[in-house]
């Protein structure tokens, strides 16, 4: 122990005058911060993750939680995080894991893009009085349609349209597997998407039978581990997604620790109880774009060409060329996951340093697909750090057909972004498989919260479109004219193909 301990990150204090010794904090904290000593609750701040469960559940507001200020000698280069990472690795010799999204202070491009609104010459549209159309079809579109005039003088469609997902809002919920999150959390998300007319991903965890009633709103995932994948699973999904990469950790696979592989998870994933579920970085049958084409077509063939197949990749520097390859692979949609995306667990060094922002990725993908004349034939889904309806609007204006949200949906269920999902102790019953914790999440109530969030964003999106004089989401998609860059440099503006503010 030559290094000793590092200072505590969070300081928990109890106001003993307010505390009534109900011990709810002890019951609620799965990290074991609180214990009772006589007539006092005593916190052990070192164990705190700032999950806020105790603060939220204390009936007397007797708990204070604050981030402890840096008490190392201050240094602009050797920050607290840098030093503590070294202490931890010097002790363990291991990779440092972390949860949730990128924690470095990169500028957020979304926040430096501003939207436009109509004044005088072009009327704003009031969504309360006028129709506002957010319906979005995700899937392959024909380059053109052929029609034939029939005997009665009407036109008949002479082009077969590939199967598409019909969304009533361009907000979907991304893939968070059963295993990474609890069954109650998945149920809540499934009920929510069914009620608002959108879709969610199963993640690479199979499809639990309790979710069968919602299967028409679920996108099943085929990742490198192929966990839970069989023909029954494929046939139940409304669409199939091949996961190649994930924004939070491009270039590496997934890892669900054996402790989270409880009985039901093992059955759903089709793996032995308590075994580590390791998805390797590469799919062992995909080492080229041709191999991907084969998998896309195999999945289509297996499901009789009735389901759209998506391919998800992490946003990396040559994302545009990769996406163009995917677009030509028979895939119906390409999902681009930016480096602000969340995750249950990722090596810290990946989460914080690999990949690129989804804003840039979407803009470049949209550009190359247009240059190649195929943008219209494939859908683009943006994910990774979508925080509010403004981000959704800007993502669509940059060229996305729809977005996936992940962390935002978890926050709607109570998650406080404490970043400790990989420990399986989530006190909110979300990122855990412990029955006593899972039962804390009421799927019906959480479903209402998630549906409320999506409905709220949808209303805001409609308002933003109306303000811009647009009453159909098709006219927002790729409409860079409705965006201006604010405090963005010329290089980024050029990549985004967005004009500077005032221009």
């Amino acid at each position: 122990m030559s290094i000793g301990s590092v200072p505590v990150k969070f300081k928990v204090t109890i106001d003993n005058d307010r505390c009534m010794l109900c011990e709810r904090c002890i019951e609620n904290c799965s990290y074991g911060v609180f214990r009772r000593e006589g007539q006092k609750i005593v916190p052990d701040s070192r164990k705190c993750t700032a999950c806020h469960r105790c603060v939220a559940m204390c009936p007397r507001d007797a708990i204070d939680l604050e981030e402890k200020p840096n008490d190392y000698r201050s240094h602009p280069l050797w920050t607290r995080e840098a030093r503590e990472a070294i202490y931890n690795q010097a002790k363990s010799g291991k990779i440092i894991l972390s949860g949730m999204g990128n924690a470095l202070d990169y500028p957020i491009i979304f926040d430096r893009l501003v939207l436009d609104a109509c004044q005088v010459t072009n009327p704003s549209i009031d969504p309360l009085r006028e129709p506002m159309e957010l319906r979005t079809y995700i899937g392959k579109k024909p380059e053109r349609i052929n029609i034939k005039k029939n005997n009665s003088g009407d036109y008949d469609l002479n082009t077969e349209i590939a199967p598409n997902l019909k969304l009533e809002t361009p907000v979907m919920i991304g893939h968070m597997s059963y295993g990474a999150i609890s069954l109650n959390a998945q149920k809540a998300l499934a009920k929510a998407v069914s009620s608002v007319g959108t879709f969610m991903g199963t993640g690479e965890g199979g499809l639990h039978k309790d979710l069968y009633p919602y299967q028409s709103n679920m996108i099943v995932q085929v990742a490198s581990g192929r966990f839970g994948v069989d023909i029954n699973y494929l046939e139940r999904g409304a669409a199939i997604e091949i996961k190649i990469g994930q924004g939070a950790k491009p270039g590496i696979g997934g890892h669900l620790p054996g402790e989270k592989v409880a009985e039901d998870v093992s059955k759903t994933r089709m793996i032995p109880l308590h075994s580590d579920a390791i998805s390797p970085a590469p799919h062992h049958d995909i080492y080229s774009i041709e191999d991907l084409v084969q998998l896309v077509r195999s999945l289509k063939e297996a499901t009789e060409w009735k389901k759209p197949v998506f391919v998800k990749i992490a946003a990396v520097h040559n994302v545009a060329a990769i996406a163009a390859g995917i677009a030509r692979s028979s895939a119906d949609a390409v999902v681009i996951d930016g480096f602000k995306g969340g995750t249950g667990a990722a090596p810290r060094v990946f989460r914080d340093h690999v990949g690129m922002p989804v804003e840039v990725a979407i803009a470049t993908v949209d550009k190359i697909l247009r240059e190649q004349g195929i943008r219209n034939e494939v859908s683009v889904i943006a994910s990774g750090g979508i925080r509010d309806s403004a981000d959704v609007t800007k993502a669509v204006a940059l060229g996305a057909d729809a977005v996936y949200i992940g962390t935002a949906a978890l926050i709607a269920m109570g998650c406080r972004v404490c970043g400790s999902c990989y420990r399986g102790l989530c006190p909110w019953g979300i990122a855990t498989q412990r029955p006593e914790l899972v039962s804390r999440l009421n799927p019906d109530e959480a479903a209402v919260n998630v549906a409320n969030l999506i409905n709220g964003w949808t209303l805001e999106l409609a308002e933003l479109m109306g303000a811009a004089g647009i009453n159909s989401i098709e006219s927002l998609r790729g409409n860079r004219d409705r965006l201006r860059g604010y405090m963005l440099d010329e290089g980024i503006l050029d990549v985004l193909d967005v004009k500077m503010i005032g221009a």
Partner: protein
Amino acid sequence: MCGIISVIDRSGSSMDGGAIKKALAQMNERGNGEGAGYAVYGAYPDYKEYYALHVFYDNLAESKTAVEAILEKWGHIEHSEEIPTYEQSRLKKTQIPWRYFFRPDASLISGGISGEKDAVIRIINTVNTSVNGALIFSSGKDVGIFKASGWPEEVADFYRIEDYEGYIWLGHNRYPTNTGGWWGGAHPFNLLDCSVVHNGEITSYGTNVRYIESFGYKCTMLTDTEVVAYLLDLLGRKHELPVDLAVKALAPPFWDEIDRMDISKKELYTALRMAYGSALMNGPFAIVVANSDSIMGFTDRIKLRPMVAAEYGDRMYISSEEAAIRTMEPVLDSVWMPTAGEPVIGRLRR
């Protein structure tokens, strides 16, 4: 704002430009003196087999030499001349309008060029994007566009519009609000057989431009009107949609309405929106599009700009204001207000 007026004589009889000049001036409240223009079909009967290329030149040295080198390289110039103009007290000649009667040789051009029309589009794109001080703004057969920055009467007098005759006339009185007034930005906008006048703003411009440019078109006029001409060229000429269906792609029925259609119609309109969502035009607009056979007017889906249609004998009119139509024809057989997104079409009886 902006005022539009159009007339077709369905028997093909000619009208001179005197009446439309007065009609357009009737709507001077809708303009600000920054742009006006006229299109006339049937203008060049002597050269009706040739593409009439109207060009604005900044000078007759480098830019004209460069354009003529391009035209001679890719085809044959049958005749060329300066378009006669007559300076007005306020309207000075800031650019030199020139016209060529031209026939391209499509076999000389590579890259998916399938015929004369594609070749002409390629030549226009080349000139408008690479030759400084030259702008081809009109390219149809037997069609002429006459436009400038000025009031309708000034522009008409500048070109002596009453000296021209044709069976279709379009007029536009401009009140530019999202780009500056300049000669190229005045309407009508023309590409090949298709001429467009437009009142409004297309808020989907960014989407429409990105869509149309992915098919090889280049938007160079700094106005949202040209994209309409390109979209109609793509949907009508290249994708072979009948004109009424092409309009339904640009201003489609709402999903609510589509959901209520019978199954085959619903499939058709769903497919139309899925395939051509990026061609959908949003924002307030009233548009009249002419080609050698017809004029067609349509508005945006919630009719944020006015449009009125009328008939008198063989003549059919579409305008922003009934008063403008009555300037041309005081007593009309019928006058009506087309519903939002519904095209009104007047065709030659051939």
